[in-house]
């Protein structure tokens, strides 16, 4: 069981961003979607999360089409961290994290003890318990992303989707986010789907990689089967040497020249 996409065709108006894509994501996996800019990565993940409706095809969660699942129920199963978010100047970390409980709140919209406990747990898991009263704008890039992830955690969803979580972050923060994601996956069995820009990062942190090009999935599988020189040449237009990272049991490459 898990999340499945069948022959998705997705577009904006006349423009078609994804021509035909099928995926299968099992519970407990970390899946990365990679590809050059314009290949349709963001579009694909937006369809998987239910934000965009596909023109053709369907997205199934445990066999049910997510189109038929109400917004709030879907939010309890899938949590999303979009690429673009805005936040008011003076929101505290704790307040931001509390929003994750929204799908669970009753009509009165009051936070019950259970909600507060979950929030505390999420803050601990993301290492932000000491930051809970801090203004979100005073946090570093990595800390802020962790706060958003903490918010997603309180949704108590089984799947977490991240759209380019590391773009614009300093490398140490990038690692911070990815290590957290890995830890959550291992300790909570959290399924993760993420769009990544950095191919080496995808190789290191994923169980499965889907490669997009021109709106179609051209290759998928385990990192060692996907990150190979011919793919790098054909899809990413670089000549590279691929090596094995024995410490992390994953491939990594060093680019040599542009094709």
């Amino acid at each position: 069981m898990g999340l499945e996409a069948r022959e998705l065709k997705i577009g904006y108006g006349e423009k078609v961003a994804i021509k035909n894509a099928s995926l299968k994501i099992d519970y407990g996996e970390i899946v990365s979607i990679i590809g050059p800019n314009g290949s349709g990565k963001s579009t694909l993940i937006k369809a998987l999360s239910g934000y965009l409706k596909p023109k053709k095809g369907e997205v199934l969660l445990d066999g049910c089409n997510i189109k038929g699942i109400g917004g709030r129920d879907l939010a309890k199963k899938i949590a999303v961290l979009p690429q673009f978010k805005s936040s008011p100047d003076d929101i505290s970390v704790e307040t931001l994290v509390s929003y994750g409980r929204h799908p669970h709140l009753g009509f009165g919209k009051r936070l019950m003890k259970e909600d507060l406990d979950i929030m505390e747990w999420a803050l601990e898991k993301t290492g932000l318990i000491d930051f809970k009263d801090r203004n979100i704008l005073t946090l570093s890039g990595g800390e802020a992303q962790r706060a958003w992830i903490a918010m997603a955690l309180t949704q108590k969803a089984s799947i977490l989707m991240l759209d380019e979580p590391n773009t614009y972050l300093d490398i140490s923060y990038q690692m911070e986010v990815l290590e957290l994601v890995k830890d959550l996956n291992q300790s909570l069995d959290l399924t993760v789907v993420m769009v990544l820009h950095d191919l080496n990062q995808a190789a290191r942190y994923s169980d499965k990689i889907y490669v997009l090009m021109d709106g179609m999935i051209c290759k998928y599988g385990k990192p060692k089967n996907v990150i190979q020189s011919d793919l790098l040449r054909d899809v990413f237009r670089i000549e590279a040497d691929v090596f094995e990272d024995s410490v992390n049991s994953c491939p990594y490459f060093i680019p040599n020249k542009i094709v």
Partner: protein
Amino acid sequence: MKCLNKNSMLIILILIIIASFFISMGNGAVKMSPLKIINTLLYERDTSNFQIIWNVRLPRTIVALLVGINLSLAGAILQGVMRNPLASPSIIGVSAGAGLTALIILIIFPNYYFLVPIGAFIGALLATLLIYFLAWNAGIMPTRLILAGVAVSSLFGAGNNALMTFYPDRVSGVISFMVGGLSAINWQDVRMIGPYTLVGVFLLFFLPNELNILTLGDEVAKGLGINVEISRFRFIILASLLAGSAVSVVGLLGFVGLIVPHIARIIIGSDYKYLIPGTLLMGGSMLMIFDTIARTLFSPTEIPVGIIMSILGAPFFLYLLRKRRGSHGTRSKRT
């Protein structure tokens, strides 16, 4: 201001609004001491003083309170929903729709002058729906809505000017509507606007979270289970009803919907859980106080309250703005 706990701030605002109520009730063209006022209300019901207190000053104070609440609340809602600090009821066409309808009635059908309040209200709502419809393109992007609002407002404004050009002798009755004011307020006006205030305030005690989440962006909101289109539509209609009912009773008052939410934001922060009560307390107090000034400064001549609001309110806001360094309101943060 931040050192003051938000809850304490709310308590202070509650005290201020209560004080404003008494200031408004205690002052007017006819001077009466507080003791005399209470005495009149209790024991002298058949005097002209009673008429003044009960049928002139009281409804006027109440309407000032309600209008202040409605307009500032509408502004706060819109600034959140549109994610734009310059949003105000006039952006969704309330002023334009109400103004044009009022003008059409006053100028072309002057015999139906008594239909102006209800007409203005309907006009406001229709204008909002028109703008919404024009901006719709498989959903509403706030920017499109704002642009459509600007276009419709200027179109209606041109309509107003055309009416005034072709019927110049009927214009004078219209000016007082356009400037906005609380003279000749009676209990009927209270009944006109009251229900919307109650509904609005009631609803808004359950909806602050939804507003907060909407300000985080459409994707985040959808991810948290909110149907963004429906939610936005509901809030805009609520804002239109709140503002429309206010404008239909007192005419076009621009300052309240735009500036009061910002004043509240500076004092109490952007979290709608506090911003909503803060804004409505602030709006109600300000309007009651400014109206009191407007009708007592050159008593018994009354100045339109809009003038007082601009002269006193704007500098106050600027002062607060300077005290707090940096800008405020929502802004996009790339994370």
